[in-house]
């Protein structure tokens, strides 16, 4: 067969294959097979010098014509494909590929929500070294105006490790540790685990979370304590929430109060607070004649239970994913 005939046949093949091109992939494949670096047309063009001289010119003309024509057509087709609507059909009612997302623990969420409010009110969160779970009796009790054999110790059913070492029963020792290291004024909050000898039941847990706040400055007033916590409670439970302060007793504050919010028609206790007792200030070397302050503490689980309508504290520590998923 003459080379020219081969070229003619190639022309026919190209024409036939061209008709089969219906997708961008096929188009690219077509381009590579005939006009790519090792494509059939390219190879023929490269081998023109091997042609008989009388055929060379004709062959060159045909090949170049093919090349020009089809490179143009390819370009046109490419454009055409670009503007053509995709033909693939999707069923929008099939469930999509949803990656399973994890979730923070509900208590983490509540902590962050509460922290955000207090941070917005100018409180700085402290933790780490200021906040060990295992404490000395001194920090948990004595420095907080609860000397040995003080009846208030009865309010704290304590896990002991040694006679002097215990699991903190509240986050208030953080107050002492921070005040020992820093000079007033200060405005801090902290979150941590606290422990009480209470077996698990629907409303008790042997370990639970607390948040503590402390503000020390010149002339801090009871009225400011009220104002700050009112803002907090309304921020957390809604702007219309009714709030009341009821006298209470904590050895490390004087006066002391419990704050109630009216939620779902019922008065619910949400936190304890008071003006820092002068003995506490003295214990950390602050002059109570110069400085005054307020402190507050709240139970995270309690707030979470009120906020989300959870009726059993054990749900937080059982970790059923059907619970974790909901909040």
């Amino acid at each position, binding site marked *: 067969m003459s080379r020219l005939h081969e070229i003619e046949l190639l022309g026919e093949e190209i024409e036939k294959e061209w008709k089969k091109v219906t997708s961008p992939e096929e188009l690219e494949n077509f381009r590579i097979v005939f006009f790519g670096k090792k494509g059939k047309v390219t190879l023929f063009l490269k081998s023109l010098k091997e042609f008989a001289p009388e055929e060379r010119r004709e062959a060159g003309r045909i090949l170049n014509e093919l090349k020009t024509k089809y490179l143009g057509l390819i370009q046109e087709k490419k454009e055409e494909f670009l503007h053509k609507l995709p033909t693939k059909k999707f069923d929008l009612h099939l469930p999509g590929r949803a990656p399973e997302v994890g979730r923070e623990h509900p208590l983490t969420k509540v902590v962050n929500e509460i922290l955000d409010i207090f941070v917005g*009110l100018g409180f700085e969160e402290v933790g780490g070294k200021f906040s060990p*779970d*295992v404490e000395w009796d001194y920090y948990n009790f004595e420095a907080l105006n609860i000397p040995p054999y003080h*009846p208030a110790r009865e309010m704290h059913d304590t896990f002991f490790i040694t006679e002097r070492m215990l699991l903190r029963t509240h986050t208030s020792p953080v107050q002492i540790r921070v005040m020992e290291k820093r000079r007033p*004024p200060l405005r801090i909050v902290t979150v941590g685990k606290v422990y009480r000898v209470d077996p698990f039941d629907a409303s008790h847990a042997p370990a639970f979370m607390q948040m503590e706040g402390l503000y020390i400055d010149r002339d801090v007033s009871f009225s*400011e304590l*009220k*104002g700050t916590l009112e803002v907090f409670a309304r921020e957390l439970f809604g702007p219309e929430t009714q709030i009341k302060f009821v006298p209470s007793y904590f050895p490390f504050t004087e006066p002391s109060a419990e704050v109630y919010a009216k939620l779902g028609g019922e008065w619910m206790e949400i936190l304890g607070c008071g003006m820092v007792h002068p003995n506490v200030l003295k214990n950390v070397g602050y002059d109570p004649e110069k400085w005054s302050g307020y402190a507050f503490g709240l139970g995270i689980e309690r707030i979470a239970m009120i906020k989300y309508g959870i009726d059993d504290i054990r749900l937080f520590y059982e970790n059923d994913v059907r619970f*974790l998923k909901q909040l």
Partner: protein
Amino acid sequence: MKVLYNLLKQYIDFDLNPIELKETFENLGIEVEEFYYLAEGLEGKVTTGIVEEIKDHPSTRDYKIVRVYTGQRTLQVVSGAPNLRKGIKVVVALPGAVIKGVRIGEKNIKGVTSEANILSLEELGLEEESPGILILDDDFKVGESPLEKLGLIDWVYDLYIFPNRPDLMGVLGLAYELRAVTGKEVRMPRVGIEEDESVGLYPVEILDKEGCPRYTARIIKGVRVKESPFWLRRTLFLLGQRPINNIVDVTNFVMLELGHPLHAFDLGKLKDKIIVRRADKGEKILCLDGVERELSDEILVIADAEKPVAIAGIIGGEDTGVTEETEDILIESAHFDRARIRKGVSILGIKTESSRRFERGSDPEIPPLASRRAAKLILEIAGGKSGLINDVKYITLKDKKITVYFDKFNRFVGEEIEPATVKNILENFGFLLRSDNEKLEVFVPPRRRDLEVWQDIAEEVLKVYGYDRVKGKISSGGSFTGKKFKSAASLIRDLATKSGFYEIKTVEFSNPLELEEFGFWKEEAVPLKNPLTQDASVLRMSLIPGILRFASLNLRRGQKFVRGFEVGKVFFWKGEDKLPEEKMHFAAIVAGRLEKKWYNMERDVDIYDLTGLIEILKNEFKLRIDVEERELKGLVNSGIIRIEGKDVGVIGEITPQVKKYYGIKMPCFVMEMDISSFSVPEKKYEKFSLYPSTRRDLSILLDKEKSYLEIKLTIDRILPDLVEKYEVIDVYSGKNIPENKKSITIAFYIRSKEKTLTQEEVDAEFSKIINAIKNAGFEIRGLE
């Protein structure tokens, strides 16, 4: 502390109805734990009847048929009470009455209709256990409601008294508190008695004057010990005390009335004198509750010439207790040091109504009054003759002066309260005052030892003034900027949840045996002296047991697949003189089988579901984290996690034995690491290349049991600068691969930051890698 509305009203005539009284208590900070009306369910449904006739029941001997006349009609009642007699007056409950929580109606007892009930004291809620029905005395009129006379038109308040207020543990103290709010006068109980010198003065010797600064003793001779009168039994019962006999009941009543505990001895059983001293070590006493207790020298006792006769302020001795045979008694009314009593309570592990009051600190001025009051009631109820009081005291407490400066006070409150208002409130508390324009001197009596500093006085004023009358305001805080504590824990939480893991929280207690299952933490655990259970007797050193329980619970409850993590503290014992070391750990778990989806195959979880998390931490914290194979207890496929060459944690698959212990039947992988040293990295913008990148793939043949690690190390050693990144895109064994080999395909991305690379430049970079791999002895399967 329980109190009755009408009882309280005997001491102060307030204008508050029962509900208002409850609210007043609450506003004063006295929590009302329980509040109920005694005649609830009885009012209008009970009447006084007279038994007209008693007949035998036709079919049983256990019941009688009684005809009771109630003024309008005669009712037929079937009753089994043993003390029924014709002509007695009884309490008749009509259908609709609620007795001990149950609504009664007409009923049929073995064929006979009973139209009503005849009630006992027990059914009326006035006694613990009644042997028969209540027989009323002649004061009660047939057809009238007996509720008033029985004292049932009354309300019970169960109050929670804070430990700083021992003075509120008696009705009189509550009356003083209400005086502050209502301004009404307090009526003191009657104490006028005749004392007879001839009865004698009982000798008292106080050896521990610190433990007992005051002791009074009073002899009463010739008492008749018997059951107390109804009013006394009823009152004690309603206030939570079990009536015993008239003498003991009076001492208990005075305790409830004045808040001051007393004790009565059988004088005939005391030897010579009272000695207040510390117990000798090993000394024993049989207590009134029938328990013999061994004492120590930290415990204060009341002894006679021979032996301890009571544990001071806590509980009396059985041998010298008052019984039916007792004729002469000795009334003790003393003041004990609160710390000493509390010590005794904590050593002996008992709490009594008496110790509860003494350990909070009783009023040192009250013993003579309490003694007189008890004598007064005993003489009235049990007869006898009272001697003089022998009052031995080593304490004189004067009123304490606390100075309040108005200006300071107002700044403390945050708004101005008129000096006149302040004075008026404090006067109503019964405090003597002296004041000028600037300040107020408050003289606080010994019964209010909780008041020590001027802030205490401020609280008393605010309590009555009303916390809610003080306007809340926010003025300062302006110079403070709030910020959150930047912890690695919160970043890890964020990353893990985004990776599909649920955060869990478990308690910090652990079972020491459980920790042993994972022997990789060699340190000593922190033990609890008083754990709730053996399962929770130490503080955890690992989060793995807790996270395994999470997986177990959820798999057992029907989940096919769980993925969770915890960030929490673990604790290591450092000896008695140092606080334990607390480290922040992160643990994660995957367990079960990923279910089939229309776009996904089902498969068991595997370790790569966890190591992916390590990759993420690596990138976010900019840390070099490696895993090194290591055999570990409780794990297979296990390794040590290392950061910059330091061991920080473990990873692996849980062994079948451990899985069995936790009831896990599915594949389960865990990892745990110490994140205490993690810090949130400061991030900076890095310029990225705008030139095209070229990808070259390389497939390398490797013995099946060999690790990818060797290839990785080879590449990392020579990694050319222009290789932007590389990643494993395929691991394959099977067709076209020798049986004992696997093929790992790696994609290399080659890109310059400065220019578009030419084909030749790319090839040059890539061949560096190929050569290195070849030189390291690996077989290359294919290039592309």
